[in-house]
């Protein structure tokens, strides 16, 4: 039994390394984009349009992943696009987590009327299809990075609220919570020091998952041109542009798509890996 568990855990280390490694590399690329990007991501050069990636015979040196139909460097655009993607992931993910987890914790631990109000809101929220909800919100809030972040928080806080409420509810029934109460601890202190550490692994897993989801939402909004002003590169915008010329220059579509896919996958895998790391019972 013990050995079996150990066997199970070995690949977890690998997935933590792979996902963490990819995200770290991406973050470094995003931060250092102005220094390391080989070209200006906005510079058009119609004589260098639709250059293939480096392994192709017709490739030009310096354009590693080729160029799009306006002659802009794909690699540089991906690097600059990752700035927006990661910024949205970090800020929107953290804010969503803070709002949702706090409400979930209050509902699950304090119960009573706070729980009734919060749970009712969650139920109403869940009735909206999220993508439609996002587009509707952007229509109301206007485009721009702040609107995207607000939209993500408004749409996705329920994911945290639901899960964390259930976990806090389960933990509240444990005898160690009763012992803290007998010892005269306040409810608030018990929530922070007794319940919170037990809910933390789930919060972390959800947080990184939410970061991945934020990347997707940002990409979808860019794809339908509802994200930020159109001239700065976004993964979603690149995918949308690449789609129209996929027969002449597949790389314009495929490279941003792969980047997006790997990033979202890494966020979710990182969450699972960290959860196991943080959970004292599994550790």
């Amino acid at each position, binding site marked *: 039994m013990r050995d079996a568990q150990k066997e199970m855990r070995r690949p977890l280390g690998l997935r933590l390394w792979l996902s963490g490694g990819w995200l770290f590399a991406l973050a470094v690329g995003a931060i250092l984009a102005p220094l390391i990007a080989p070209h200006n991501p906005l510079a058009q050069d119609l004589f260098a349009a639709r250059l293939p990636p480096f392994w192709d015979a017709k490739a030009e040196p310096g354009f590693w992943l080729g160029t799009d139909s306006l002659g802009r460097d794909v690699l540089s655009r991906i690097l600059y696009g990752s700035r927006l993607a990661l910024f949205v992931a970090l800020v929107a993910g953290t804010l969503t987590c803070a709002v949702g987890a706090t409400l979930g914790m209050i509902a699950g631990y304090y119960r009573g009327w706070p729980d009734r109000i919060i749970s009712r809101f969650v139920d109403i929220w869940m009735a909206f299809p999220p993508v439609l909800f996002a587009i509707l919100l952007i229509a109301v809030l206007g485009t721009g990075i702040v609107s995207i972040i607000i939209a993500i928080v408004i749409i996705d806080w329920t994911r945290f609220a639901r899960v964390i409420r259930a976990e806090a509810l389960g933990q509240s029934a444990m005898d160690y919570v009763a012992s803290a109460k007998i010892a*005269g601890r306040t409810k608030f202190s018990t929530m922070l020091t007794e319940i919170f550490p037990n809910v933390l692994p789930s919060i972390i897993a959800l947080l990184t998952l939410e970061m991945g989801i934020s990347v997707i939402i940002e990409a979808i909004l860019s794809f339908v041109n509802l994200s930020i002003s159109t001239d700065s590169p976004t993964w979603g915008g690149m995918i949308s542009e690449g789609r129209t010329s996929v027969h002449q220059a597949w790389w314009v579509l495929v490279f941003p798509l792969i980047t997006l896919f790997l990033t979202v996958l890494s966020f979710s895998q990182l969450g699972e890996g960290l959860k196991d790391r943080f959970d004292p019972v599994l550790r």
Partner: protein
Amino acid sequence: MSSFLSIRNLNVKLAQGTPILRSVSLDVNAAQVHGLVGESGAGKSMIGKAVLGILPKALHITGGEIWLDGTDLLTLPPSERRKRIGAQAALIPQDPLTALNPSKRIGPQITRRLVDILGWSKADALDRALELLDEVHIPDPLRVMRNYPHELSGGMRQRILIASAFAAEPKLIIADEPTTALDATVQKQILRLIAQMQKRHGTALLFVTHDLGVVSKVCDSLSVLYAGKLVEQAQMRRFFMSPIHPYSAALLAATPTYADPTGSLTPVPQSVIDTVEQEVAQHDMRHQS
């Protein structure tokens, strides 16, 4: 002999009015062990929880008094009541796994109590915690303090909970079936340990169990509960020699060590069940209006 805990006519009901405890009166004398027996669902745990102020939200105290060291807890304002309970009472719970916080090391879980209740410094609390773990026969206490609960066996965890319950020198400990989650050999050790600690510290102990055999070993007096109603309260010797209530007698007959260790067990006869059920119904009638 003064009673340290004295429960008078305690009534506990579910929100919609279903009685859970029916005018229960019960005394635990200072430095003595009082057994509380009854079948599953009789309301034994709820008596302990009512005293400690940890009743589930759905349950309410609708009448009665709970005297702890000469003060009726139910007349105190909530903050004052919490302080008193914390300073004077502690719980040894049934399930040693959920009674320790799984994400915290053992050491801080014990010392926290000393800091909370007695206002000690961390360093003093640490010394005391080591002493206590030694007292409950935990080998290598320094190492155990750094362990997480899941790294220890059930017996070890229960020892730690005993140490933790006695840590702040409470005058009353409520042990709620402290051995049911353990296997038979460990049960005996834990039972002996609790009895030992109770004697050494001079603590009043309310010992909740459904095992009359256990009661006979550790208790000075006992109460029998049926469907939230007290059937009989007696000194140990008198109870085992001549139980007054037919339900008590039937319970005794159903206990292997006393009736006939080798022979077959006698289940509680239906006629006796009918008698107690009738008493319970009569009680409810009287308290309806």
